[in-house]
């Protein structure tokens, strides 16, 4: 079974500080893409960052970066210099190339940013 586990239902961070959200996944396949999505309250889900499983280099997007450990099947998201606008639900997901277009989502981490 394809599963995604986000073990932190809730996290909080002081404004301007750094926070790391964890994600582990379970697949026996080797070709896939990993994604982090952000869903602010009552707003639509948007992509934060993506990582190709065949790349060893960790993806970065401005203040967002990932720590991808393929052997451990771990894909954590680091948010640096946290801002009030970062407060949202964060979902980890992956897409297997073998199944084409099916995405597997975690249960989410609710991030609070404290002013």
């Amino acid at each position, binding site marked *: 079974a394809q599963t995604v586990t986000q073990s932190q239902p809730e996290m909080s961070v002081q404004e301007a500080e750094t926070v790391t959200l964890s994600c582990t996944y379970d697949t026996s396949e080797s070709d896939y893409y990993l994604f982090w999505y952000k869903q602010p309250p009552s707003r*639509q*889900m948007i992509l934060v960052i*993506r990582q190709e499983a065949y790349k060893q280099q960790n993806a970065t997007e401005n203040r967002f970066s990932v720590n991808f450990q393929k052997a451990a099947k771990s894909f954590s998201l680091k948010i640096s210099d946290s801002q009030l606008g970062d407060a949202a639900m964060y979902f980890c997901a992956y897409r297997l190339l073998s199944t*084409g*277009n*099916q*995405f597997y989502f975690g*249960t989410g981490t609710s991030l609070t940013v404290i002013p």
Partner: protein
Amino acid sequence: EAGVVQSPRYKIIEKKQPVAFWCNPISGHNTLYWYLQNLGQGPELLIRYENEEAVDDSQLPKDRFSAERLKGVDSTLKIQPAELGDSAVYLCASSSYRGSDTQYFGPGTRLTVL
């Protein structure tokens, strides 16, 4: 480029009433997804279309839910009759065939069944 469009944004109905949601995906996206999202939970796939073909509807409660994607573009998701437990946000998303491509989500329809 326009994003994924969904309507209505909010819907309140009495139980046992029918309800329908509409989705227009991003132009050129062959794959369309309908998800159900309960409060504080991740999206749960209801049905996935490749063009006009439903390729994964294993989680769709077929006794009361139905969906269609005529001409492989717009899609409609229907519930008849609605139950109290159907109260949730219904998300539509679309993607291309490129493996690196993400899903693009619509704003969702928040359904309340009274």
